[in-house]
């Protein structure tokens, strides 16, 4: 894997805290992601890993601390939120493609509405990324006509059409049938090879080993430990990490 990271931080989280009512979902989370870095976030369910990446593009609000993306500090102001969302793409567990639009229309909507591109320009970009995720031949179909794996690849292409600087993946393979996991992971590996900055919430430890620069382990809303995959898997420092890895690796 070529080393594509630089020292410049693209995403920085400082002392981030979040509550759902009385429930403390994120506790003093600190994390820096440099350009080109690939982070895999793992941890038991309810550990706050999905909440964390949803805070980065302001799908969730934080109550404490600071999130900075490409120099923009995320506040409640619409301008800051727009600026951050322009730089950061997201892929969801349940794809969330627009069911009433074709794959092509799913891909061209945001570039046309947000960037003001013409239909022709947006379609050129869309075709490029649909080709990259290898479903350009499905462009005129509706999401329901595609397999789960194809839908998720279309969702990746849709996010890429906005040409973001970083991509957030929220358990992108968890809703897929086992035989379709690989095609989505391969797409993500390809993206990583091309130098995309990525934060992936996933339980695919093979993917983490192959792609991640750092694996971050979360439990009860806190970052418990992090490190490069070799050390993280071979020599986990904390008891909770060992328990988690024992459980998850026993299944794979």
């Amino acid at each position, binding site marked *: 894997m070529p080393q594509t990271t630089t020292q410049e931080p693209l995403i920085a989280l400082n002392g981030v805290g979040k509550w759902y009512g009385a429930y403390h979902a994120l506790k003093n989370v600190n994390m820096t992601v440099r350009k080109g870095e690939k982070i895999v976030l793992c941890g038991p369910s309810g550990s706050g890993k999905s909440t964390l990446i949803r805070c980065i593009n302001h799908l969730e609000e934080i109550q404490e601390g600071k999130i900075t993306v490409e120099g923009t500090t995320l506040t409640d102001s619409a301008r800051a939120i727009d600026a951050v969302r*322009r730089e950061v793409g*997201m892929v969801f567990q349940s794809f969330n493609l*627009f069911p009433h639009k074709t794959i092509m229309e799913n891909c061209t*909507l945001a570039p046309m509405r947000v960037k003001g591109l013409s239909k022709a320009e947006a379609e050129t970009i869309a075709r490029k990324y649909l080709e990259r995720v290898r479903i350009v031949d499905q462009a005129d179909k509706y999401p329901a006509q595609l397999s789960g794996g194809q839908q998720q690849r279309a969702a990746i292409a849709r996010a890429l059409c906005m040409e973001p600087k970083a991509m957030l993946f929220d358990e992108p393979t968890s809703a897929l049938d086992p035989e379709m996991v690989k095609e989505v992971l391969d797409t993500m590996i390809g993206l990583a090879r091309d130098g995309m900055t990525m934060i992936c919430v996933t339980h695919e430890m093979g993917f983490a080993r192959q792609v991640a620069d750092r694996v971050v382990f979360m439990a009860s809303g806190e970052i418990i430990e992090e490190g490069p995959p070799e050390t993280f898997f071979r020599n986990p420092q904390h008891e909770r990490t060992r328990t988690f890895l024992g459980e998850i690796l026993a299944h794979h």
Partner: protein
Amino acid sequence: MASIGFNELFFLAQGLKWTLALTLIGFVGGGIFGLLVALARTAEITWLRRVTAGYIAIFQGTPLLMQLFVVYYGVALVGLNIDAWLAVAIAFTLHASAYLGEIWRGGIQAVPKGQTEAAKALGLHYASTIKDVILPQAFKISLPATIGFLVQLIKGTSLAAIVGFVELSRAGQIVSNQTFRPLTVFALVGLAYFLICWPLSLWGARTERRLQTAAR
């Protein structure tokens, strides 16, 4: 005893024309304002949601007949001398917008949350999210209930007779008084309503079935 001839039938047809015109006005006016009501009901601004909830409660909780009275005589009280047409159009628009607003609110809220989140994550603003992503899906979900309300509205226009409007029911009453053949006249009037409403009801039921199979 007079017989029912061409003149009587023509008079009824005139009434039918006004019934359809009133329905159209109620549906178009109610559709436009109902959309605003539905958007206000699902807005993030709390007071806007509360105000529209109150609006819906008032118009769903009082008889249409009373609403017609209040608008018709109410505007006159404020010193405005308006046409019966305008008064009735306003009353039907208010009435329909409350019902359609509530039906469409349900449709909007039935669209999975992930759709809004995907739109937000792509950087789409509120207007585009609503227009391009949410409403097309919400309308499809709401179509059976919307058609059902349209049928109610067609029959509800008969109440406009109370403020002097000669629509189909009132026309029937007049013809019946002239010809002393109430049974025949109201059978004709009823048939006219039925021939308009029944196909709509069938269409509504078919849409509902199709949506149910699509969701499975």
